[in-house]
C-alpha cells in the first residue's frame, strides 16, 4: 500500500510536533538556580521541597501523600529526579511515568487529583502558579 500525499503531511506534522515539544522541554530546562519540587493535591499546594542538587549528598527522601478520597501516592525525591514509587490508584499511570528533573516537567495522578511538578526560579511556570494560587 502506497501512502497518499496527505498521509505524508500527517507524518510530517507528527514529526514537527515531537520536535517542538522537545524544544519546549529544552527551553524550560534551561534555567539557573534552585529548583523546587511542588506537590499539589486537589488544587492546593501541600508540599514544597527544594530539589537536592548533584553536589549535596544523595539523600533520597520519600513522601507519602494521602489523597482526598483515601488513596495514597509515595513520591521519591532525589538528586536523580522525582518519581512516584507506589500508589493505589486504579490505573497506576503515575507509577509508570518516567522520573522528572527539569523545571516545567510534571507527573500527574488523575484519580487522586495529585500533581507533582518541578519549578525553577523566575520561570514562566512560576507566573502560572501565582495566578493559580
Amino acid at each position: 500500500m502506497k501512502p497518499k500525499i496527505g498521509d505524508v503531511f500527517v507524518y510530517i506534522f507528527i514529526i514537527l510536533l515531537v520536535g517542538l515539544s522537545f524544544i519546549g522541554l529544552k527551553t524550560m530546562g534551561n534555567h539557573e538556580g534552585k529548583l523546587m519540587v511542588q506537590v499539589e493535591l486537589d488544587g492546593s499546594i501541600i508540599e514544597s521541597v527544594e530539589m537536592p542538587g548533584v553536589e549535596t549528598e544523595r539523600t533520597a527522601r520519600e513522601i507519602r501523600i494521602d489523597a482526598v478520597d483515601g488513596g495514597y501516592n509515595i513520591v521519591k525525591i532525589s538528586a536523580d529526579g522525582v518519581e512516584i514509587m507506589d500508589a493505589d490508584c486504579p490505573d497506576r499511570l503515575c507509577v509508570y511515568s518516567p522520573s522528572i528533573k527539569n523545571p516545567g516537567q510534571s507527573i500527574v495522578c488523575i484519580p487522586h487529583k495529585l500533581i507533582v511538578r518541578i519549578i525553577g526560579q523566575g520561570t514562566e511556570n512560576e507566573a502560572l502558579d501565582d495566578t493559580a494560587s
Partner: protein
Amino acid sequence: MKKTRKLTLLGLLVSQALVLHYIEGFIPVLAPGAKLGLANIITMVALVLFGFKEAMAIVIIRAVLGPLLGGSVTGILYSLSGGILSGIIMSILYQNFRDYFSFMGISTAGAVFHNIGQLLAASWIFNTIGILYTYLPILMVAAVVTGYFNGLVARYILGYLKNKVEIGS
C-alpha cells in the same frame, strides 16, 4: 434510509463503540496514558456511512458513557475534549480532502488530535503547560501505530459493509 433503520444502525454503532472503549481498558499498553483508541474505528465507519453530524453524535455519547462504564467521572472531560477535536479533524479531512488521504492517514490524524485534545484539557485542568511537552512525544509515537491499525480495520469493515449492506438506500 428509513428513520427507524438509521436509528437502529446508529444505536448499534454506539454500542459497538462502547464495547471497544470498555475492552481496550484491559489491554495493556507500553506508554503511560497511551490507548489503542479502538472506538475510533467506529467513528470512522459512522463518518463514511452517515456523515459529520451522526459521527459526532456517536463520539459524544461514547465519550460520556464510556468513562462511566469503567473509569472515573473526570474521564468524561478528557474523552470529550479528545473525541470532539479528533472527530472534527477527521470529518474535515474525509469530507474535503478524501482524495489525498488514505483511511490510515485520516485515522492517524484523528489519533494525534485526540491526544492533543486530551493534553490540552489536562494542562487546562492542572494549569500547567508542561504536561504537553512531557507526554506529547511518546503519545505521538503511539498514535502513529494505533492510528494506522485502526484505519486499516476501518477500511476492511467499510469494504465489507458496502458490499453486504445497502446503507445508502
